């Protein structure tokens, strides 16, 4: 795809005897929301971690915005515009939400290394923090300690942290995990609002959310791409039903 922002080719990653990626090819178009589904242990998280740089592939190549980033360090990928959220919430529990966002904002503004100024945010960055909190629906919690958040709010913060570095490509690892029905609906609206301005890879087990949001879906099984297509394509694919939906 000529306008693809991300392309992954021949990605292989083995953990001992397990091939978490066994030759994965993937292309994400600019502005696309590309969902990745597959059974537990099929290599979804490992794929995101390789795209983000936390896990080094054994073979294969990753190209982002026309640049080969296969061996690029994480902080450089973040500056280039890749960001991720985690399946298990990862934040700074003994700081306020605002302080949590400050790290990413300062990193993006390239002021994180300043060691002789006060850490307090500039007015412009303060406004940015407020805007992101508003976007994810946590405005009223800006000065709360993260430790005091409810589970659903943790999932919202997870997305806010991912947004704080101003990404072009968002890698979301199961943002719906553990959300109630109402919270799930709000999360669908939130992710839908990011479509178009962000390219998104959405790893998710919640099929309703996937079908509601995805432009295209890739099905992984045992580290291999089983199929890629629209929701309608996949719903009718016998191979997918057999491998993923467990139907004969």
């Amino acid at each position: 795809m000529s306008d693809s922002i991300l392309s992954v080719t021949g990605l292989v990653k083995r953990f001992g005897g397990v091939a978490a990626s066994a030759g994965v090819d993937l292309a994400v178009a600019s502005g696309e929301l590309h969902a990745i589904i597959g059974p537990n242990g099929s290599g979804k998280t490992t794929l995101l971690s390789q795209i983000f740089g936390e896990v080094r592939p054994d073979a294969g190549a990753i190209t982002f915005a026309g640049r080969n980033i296969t061996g690029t360090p994480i902080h450089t990928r973040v500056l280039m515009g890749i960001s991720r959220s985690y399946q298990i919430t990862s934040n700074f529990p003994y700081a306020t939400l605002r302080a949590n966002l400050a790290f990413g904002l300062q990193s993006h503004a390239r002021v994180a290394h300043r060691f002789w100024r006060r850490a307090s945010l500039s007015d412009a960055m303060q406004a940015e923090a407020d805007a992101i909190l508003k976007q994810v629906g946590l405005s009223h919690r800006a000065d709360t300690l993260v430790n005091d958040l409810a589970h659903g709010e943790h999932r919202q913060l997870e997305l806010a942290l991912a947004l704080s570095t101003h990404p072009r490509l968002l890698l979301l690892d199961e943002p719906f995990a553990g959300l109630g029905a109402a919270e799930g609906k709000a999360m669908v609206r939130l992710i839908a609002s990011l479509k178009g301005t962000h390219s998104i890879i959405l790893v998710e087990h919640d099929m309703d959310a996937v079908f509601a949001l995805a432009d295209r879906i890739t099905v992984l099984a045992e580290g291999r791409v089983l199929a890629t297509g629209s929701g309608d394509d996949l719903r009718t694919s016998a191979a997918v039903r057999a491998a993923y939906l467990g139907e004969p």
Partner: protein
Amino acid sequence: MSRIAIVAALLGLLAVAGPLAIWGGQPYLAFVLTRLMLLAVAGVGLNLVLGYCGLASFGHAAFIGVGAYVAAIAATEAFTGSVWADLAAATAAGAIAAAMVGAISLRTRGIAFILITLAFGQMAYYAAISLERYGGDDGMRIPAAALPADLTLYGLAFALLAVALFVSHQIVHSPYGTILQGAAANERRMTALGIPVGRYRLAAYAVSGALCGAAGALQAVHDGYVSPGLMAWPRSAELVAMVLVGGAATTSGPLLGALAFTALDEVLSGWTDHWRIAFGVLLVAAALIGRGGLAAFVAGRRE
């Protein structure tokens, strides 16, 4: 009392106590206070790594030793004839030594980090023993002519302590410093936010080594003597204990720790050689009370 107030009060006391002691014919008191201040400077240095980065470095006595040896050798050989130049050289040497140790040890975490810093400390110790020209096992004396007067030394130690506290305070409250502390809580997320955490820590490690090197240099001219024993691993462990007792990751912690350590040393070492047991009891208490140490106790809050 706020933590800044504790530091200001203690610095105010130290500013008058030393000169009064020297003019009042109590040179020993000034001697002890000088040692206390230098211990506190090394503690401030270690606190950057141990307290704010959350990295248990057990080799910091090596950086004190490197600074001490550089100053002693420079003074003996009279390379420059200037205390300032020797102090600068020792500070730089401490920073470089720490950068080298950090470049390797910071690749590891947890127990491996502790063991590697310990190993580097012991390597420095044995390297000092092998310096035949500079006394080997026995260490070396610095010619009396090369030593500054008591009051000058006291002033230098005081100035160094004030600078160390100020620099540490500035760093800790900067974006860089808050990021170091955030990375101590969650390194993975901090990395994911685009921070090259390893490099950030290496810089802190070097600053930490610089402060220890400077403290070591003044320690050398204060004692008029250096020996490999300065770098032996129990010195590193004591420094860690001192910072923990005083209050890791607090501005006043290293100063309060040095005060407790010196006070126990002075009071108890007259009675028994095993006074460090008492310090051990304080350490256990600090561990039980929590991270805040004496600083939290004096400030009246516990985190």
